């Protein structure tokens, strides 16, 4: 069946058709349209089916990439989706949001001479195809083990852990603080990058598997972890509460009206659907001149949402250069196309008010790259005398998040590190407290969807082992705090 062989000149990658930049900058509909079956087959045919596929090693959950691509070549799309689902429960999400360019695609052999196989696009295609054509089939219910597990937080970490646990026959309850399940997938990542119906379908699937999803349940307040493990009879619990606390710039004027944390701006827009105000009740300031601070996915999302809310000008202010931006390359590219202005090597100094409590400008300073810092990136240092002002009416710091202490501070015996993250074993998610596992951003700090999902899966496996052996090893955890 091999249609292409190493040595043969690779054809160009099949581009995914997208909404025109100028049109899409005014709506919240998804940017790429997805492949047609023909396009998918054509792109799949570029894959060399390497005997020693390096792409697979770049995938944090080791999806059998050549096999699923081979199934696409053969037109067996639904089987291709199932092949992926052996390792990744949510390909429709990951195909859209994974940073493929630094994972699987970065290692694809074709990348040495031309463009690597569009693995992410293909993953997305088969997941969408399966959803639209086969429904998402629920496997037969396994025999009950009589064990109960509480999963706290319904982001990708919690969802994937809950899905695996229920398939092992345990009774699983998923607690979510907000009124909707999905974590960052519903409150953070915007509709035009990840349509909410996709996340809803995933959550719905987990419900159909038998997971009891309880929203509006802020653990630490409504129930404590100890209460879950004692009074409520849970045999284990998995904490995947994310890193939800916003970090502000810490410069003067930051509490003026019109200044939003990226979390607030995106939560209003995505979770509360403020872009549909007044159809939906939650308001949001539609800035004319907007400044976003940061260079990650969160900053890109905030900038592109501001644009879609009708801004005339959106500046992305970042203190390093574009090469250092941690955002997905595809989104940086999309942001450029849509007309977001990149103001690089620039740092804000203070916000200036209009005399009525609203923001009217931000004073910035130019930076230049100095010596490499701890992360190996060259450290930006201010250029003396280069201060300047930009007039703005909305400002959005998107410079990172920290762990929310609401839950962790109410769990006696749970070891945290200096920055407030839970200390847990990477392989198992085991924490210092017997019966309590943790994974995702609450361990690692802001990372990625696929890493959180991987942690959820490993923890589900470790919970099964724990039930079998009742073994708790915290020795490894010492010293990591």
């Amino acid at each position, binding site marked *: 069946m091999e249609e292409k062989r190493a040595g043969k000149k690779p054809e160009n990658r099949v581009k995914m058709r997208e909404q025109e930049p100028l049109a899409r900058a005014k709506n919240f509909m998804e940017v790429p349209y997805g492949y047609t079956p023909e396009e998918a087959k054509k792109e799949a045919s570029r894959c060399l089916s390497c005997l020693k596929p390096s792409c697979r090693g770049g995938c944090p959950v080791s999806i059998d990439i050549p096999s699923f691509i081979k199934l696409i070549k053969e037109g067996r799309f639904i089987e291709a989706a199932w092949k992926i689902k052996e390792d990744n429960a949510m390909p429709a999400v990951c195909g859209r949001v994974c940073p493929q360019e630094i994972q699987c695609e970065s290692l694809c052999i074709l990348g040495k001479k031309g463009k690597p196989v569009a693995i992410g696009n293909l993953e997305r295609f088969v997941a969408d195809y399966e959803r639209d054509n086969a429904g998402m089939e629920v496997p037969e219910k396994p025999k009950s083990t009589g064990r109960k597990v509480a999963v706290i937080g319904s982001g990708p970490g919690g969802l994937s852990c809950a899905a695996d646990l229920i398939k092992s026959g345990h009774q699983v309850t998923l607690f979510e603080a907000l*009124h909707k399940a999905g974590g960052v997938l519903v409150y953070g990542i915007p509709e035009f990058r990840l349509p909410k119906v996709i996340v809803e379908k995933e959550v719905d699937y987990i419900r159909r598997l038998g997971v009891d999803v309880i929203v509006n349940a802020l653990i630490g307040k409504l129930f404590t972890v100890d209460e879950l493990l004692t009074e409520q009879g849970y045999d284990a619990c998995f904490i995947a509460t994310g890193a939800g606390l916003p970090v502000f710039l810490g410069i003067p004027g930051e509490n003026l009206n019109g200044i939003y944390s990226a979390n607030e701006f995106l939560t209003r827009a995505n979770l509360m659907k403020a872009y549909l105000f007044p*159809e939906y009740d939650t308001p949001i300031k539609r800035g004319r001149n907007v400044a976003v601070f940061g260079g990650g996915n969160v900053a890109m999302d905030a900038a592109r949402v501001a644009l879609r809310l009708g801004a005339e000008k959106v500046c992305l202010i970042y203190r390093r250069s574009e090469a250092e931006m941690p955002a997905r390359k595809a989104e940086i590219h999309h942001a450029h196309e849509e007309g977001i202005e990149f103001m690089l090597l620039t740092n804000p100094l203070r916000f200036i008010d209009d005399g009525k409590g609203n923001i009217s400008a931000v004073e910035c300073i130019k930076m230049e790259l100095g010596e490499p810092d701890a992360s190996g990136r060259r450290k930006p240092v201010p250029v003396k005398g280069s201060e300047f002002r930009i007039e703005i009416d909305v400002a959005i710091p998107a410079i990172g998040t920290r762990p929310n202490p609401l839950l962790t501070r109410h769990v006696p015996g749970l070891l945290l590190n200096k920055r407030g993250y839970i200390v847990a074993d990477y392989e198992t998610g085991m924490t210092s407290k017997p019966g309590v596992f943790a994974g995702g951003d609450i361990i690692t700090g802001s990372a990625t969807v696929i890493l959180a999902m991987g942690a959820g899966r490993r923890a589900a496996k470790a919970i099964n082992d724990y039930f079998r052996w009742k073994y708790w090893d915290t020795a490894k955890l010492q010293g990591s705090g």
Partner: protein
Amino acid sequence: MFKILKKEELSDLVILFEIEAKDIAKKARAGNFFVLKIHEQGERIPLTIADFDRDRGTITTVFQKMGKTTHHLGTLNEGDSILDMTGPLGIHSHIENFGKVVCVGGGVGIAPTFPIARALKEAGNAVISIIGARTKELIFWEDKMRAVSDELIIVTDDGSYGQKAVVTTPLDALLRENQDIKLVYAIGPAIMMKFVCVTTEKHNAKTIVSLNSIMVDATGMCGACRVEVGGETKFACVDGPEFDGRKVDFNLLMSRQRMYIEEERVAMERYKEKSGGN
């Protein structure tokens, strides 16, 4: 879904709901609040847990019709349900036997003052309460407040009931005459809390206020609720809502409360049109 078991119209503007919420009731303490979202398109708004009944599994809240969401809420009746409710939120009041304390409740703030006054009384404090409103019509829970206070002072702006005064007038007199007042609790409109603090500053009396900043998630995730206390930024939903009033920047609080004034007007007008008045 959370079912409304009892509705009471305390005045034209102020409504009481007793709502079925077993788990929240079990954990509620004086000073806690909750967030509700009436329906799918609704916004999340915070309201104080003004009372709770662990046996019946209910919480009581008292709200004033301000804009669209509270007006809409006011149209719900016994038997109707609220789609989403999260709680108990915020750090509950710190209660101990301080000695002599004053509880000041202004307008709809009378409701959240009640459970605190009750808890302080139960802890052995001598409780003097001051409740005030614009006019007689807006005074409610007089008997409930009287039952948990050693002394109850009522004021109205227009003098239609009790003394014709604002709450700071009797407060100032009390502080002057009673050097042994250890603590003042004040809950009401920001402007009232601000002037209460001006008054207590004069007498160097410790003052706790409950800040009603605009909130979204109310779990510490967004920072919409940020306030400045002693020059530091705090999140009212998780660090509060109660703070040392004399350190609060009330002007910032009031300015931030007005952030969506235009949007609120649009929402209200649209709502009135759709619901045909009211």
